[in-house]
């Protein structure tokens, strides 16, 4: 094909428009000045910024707190807005707030308010600022039950407000494995941020109504994990697990259980370069069993493999993936495919863990950590696409560089040692799909977290056979594809076991 550069365009500004540009410049100048002023004020106030975390059945949210007259204040209208129908109006010096059918009357500068005709002590003056009615934080414990008709519990020291019975409780127990694991079980799904520090793992629950156990300090009588401390501050609950050794946290698929275990259970499993000549796989361990693996090094025995296959429904939560149609999102199709693949694998005797079985946010790093921690014989990420015909099976396209340091593998190229086995697995899966007359291609792809997984890892992108995206949701088609994938995995089961 011969062709030359296409259009080049130059825009000439007409004379009339240049005046508009000048005016725009003046506006821009004034806006810039205002912006600088605003940012100066904002930045000056930033370091002391405090938030109130509100937990309710309707929504969990946070609101800024402002300090006035030596105490924290919060906007009452903003606080009630997510919970129901709310309106407010000024009536002379009185501020009338209506929440559903309940009316409250507040007067600027006074400590008293009327809610449903009854007086209430605010513990500080009611303030009006920029049409916002501000009440002292401490007054919420008495004001809110009157507006809401139900209990509201304020943790004043930590700026946390619980509306109704929404608290998430947890238990902590030390599993008597070797090495020991701390198992935290929560009454509702949680998604804390995890920070590893020297001698501790810190779990910060900024968005969940996690509350204190019976005692703020939990002791476990273990040398490796002696204790944990619970605290609350600035709208968040923090659990610090103290330890004498490096720890790592892993999450259960339903996000209700967090297991904290020594990192060497993972680090010591870093495989040597894959040796496909080892045809003696360990039989896949069933969940709950703990076969004794032969230690490869003079170190504590690595944790047993719990699942042979880890199936990952890609995307989830805020990450929708591709919008396949006006009513169909990739994240929903991948969950359905993952469930179908689990059935197919388990029907072939392959124990399977589905990483995401609900509409939850799960960062790619976390997915790789979970797959690595589980020492799965194969990690299978599932994607769906409206483009292309049939199925694509991917193995990792590794990024540039090899930054391994001694026994420590680079996170970005952790897959390198298992790549040949991954490619074999991808070929086997592609072969099974072909047998079933499904158009298929095996390719490399720069697709995370394939490159972060230590063991064999593939991704399967399922597209419709024709142009009808609705086929992706058809159980028959899903079963046809996942059945082929499961057969492909089963065909190389021995090789995968050897790579582990």
């Amino acid at each position, binding site marked *: *094909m*011969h*062709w*030359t*550069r*296409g*259009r*080049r*365009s*130059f*825009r000439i500004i007409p004379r009339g*428009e240049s005046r*508009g540009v000048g*005016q*725009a410049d003046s*506006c821009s100048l004034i806006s810039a000045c205002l912006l600088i002023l605003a940012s100066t004020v904002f930045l000056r106030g930033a370091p002391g910024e405090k938030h109130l975390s509100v937990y309710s059945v309707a929504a969990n949210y946070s609101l800024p707190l402002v300090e006035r007259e030596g105490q924290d204040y919060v906007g009452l209208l903003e606080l009630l807005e997510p919970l129901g129908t709310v309106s407010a109006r000024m009536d002379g010096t009185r501020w009338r707030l209506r929440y559903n059918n309940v009316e409250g009357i507040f007067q600027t500068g006074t400590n008293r308010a009327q809610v449903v005709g009854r007086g209430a002590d605010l513990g500080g003056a009611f303030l009006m600022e920029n049409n916002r009615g501000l009440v002292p934080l401490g007054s919420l414990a008495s004001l809110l039950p009157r507006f809401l008709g139900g209990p509201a519990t304020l943790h004043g020291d930590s700026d946390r407000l619980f509306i109704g019975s929404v608290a998430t409780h947890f238990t902590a127990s030390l599993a008597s494995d070797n090495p020991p694991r701390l198992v935290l079980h929560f009454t509702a799904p949680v998604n804390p941020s995890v920070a590893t520090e020297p001698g501790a793992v810190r779990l910060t629950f900024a968005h969940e109504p996690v509350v204190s156990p019976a005692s703020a300090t939990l002791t476990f009588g273990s040398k490796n994990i002696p204790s944990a401390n619970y605290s609350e501050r600035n709208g968040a609950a923090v659990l610090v697990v103290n330890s004498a050794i490096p720890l790592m946290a892993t999450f259960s698929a339903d996000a209700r259980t967090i297991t904290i275990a020594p990192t060497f259970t993972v680090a010591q499993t870093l495989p040597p370069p894959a040796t496909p000549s080892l045809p003696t796989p360990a039989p896949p361990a069933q969940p709950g069993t703990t076969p004794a693996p032969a230690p490869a090094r003079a170190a504590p025995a690595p944790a047993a493999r719990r699942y042979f296959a880890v199936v990952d429904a890609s*995307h989830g939560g805020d*990450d929708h*993936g*591709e*919008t396949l149609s006006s009513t169909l999102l*990739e994240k929903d199709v991948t969950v359905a495919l993952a469930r179908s693949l689990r059935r197919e694998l388990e029907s072939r005797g392959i124990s399977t863990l589905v990483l995401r079985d609900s509409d939850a946010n799960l960062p790619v790093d976390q997915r790789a950590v979970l797959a690595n921690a589980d020492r799965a014989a194969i990690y299978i990420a599932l*994607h769906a*696409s*409206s*483009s*292309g015909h049939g199925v*694509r099976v*991917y193995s990792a*396209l*590794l*990024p*540039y*560089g090899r930054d391994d340091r001694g026994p420590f593998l680079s996170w*970005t190229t952790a897959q390198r040692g298992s790549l040949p086995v991954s490619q074999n697995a991808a070929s086997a899966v592609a072969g099974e799909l072909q047998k079933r007359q499904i158009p298929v*291609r*095996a*390719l*490399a*792809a*720069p*697709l*995370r977290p394939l*490159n972060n997984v230590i063991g064999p890892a593939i*991704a399967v*992108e399922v597209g419709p056979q024709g142009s009808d995206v609705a086929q992706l949701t058809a159980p028959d088609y899903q079963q046809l594809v996942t059945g082929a994938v499961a057969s492909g995995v089963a065909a190389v089961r021995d090789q995968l076991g050897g790579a582990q």
Partner: protein
Amino acid sequence: MIPRHLHIAMGVLLGAALGLSLYAWHVRKTVARAPAAAVDTTPLAPPVSGPTERVILFIAHDEDGTLRPESAQIPLPSDRQQRAEELLRTLVAYYLQKNSTHTLGAGAEVRSVFLVDPGGAVIDLNSAFADTHRSGVLVEVLTVASLIHTIAANVPGISRVKILVDGKQRDTLAGHADLSSYYDVSGVNQLVTELQPQ
């Protein structure tokens, strides 16, 4: 008693103030009503003159998910960096055409290309490129492979390529293709082989 001329002066001043206020109000309304300048989605590039050269562009084809070499005759500067920029802008201009085999979103543009020794190239795309890109593993892989292989095949000495968006690192192109690390050109070459028509 206020002198008459002061009355007149005051009246004139008030009139002038009123007139200016009306004028300011009118100007403000005019500016507010003025339609926003139409977004020019055509990539702007410095005009290149001089002799043309035959180059090989690796063009993505969505209908069968392949990457095919196609020759083009374009004017190329002698400077390596400018050559790389011009190549990729030509490639993107092709994808922006209506009958393109692999369409990119309106406004997609290569902002610049930097060559970094030893063997590094950094492609800086604009945000419209990534924000309007279709999501999907294969479709994103085709774009990335097309950009990288075109530059590596025509500008010798490039062994790794990093893709930025608006000068900043971005996790993925459109939810799938990883942009967080340098691409290994030898690995991409292997991928391009796999993407050839069967």
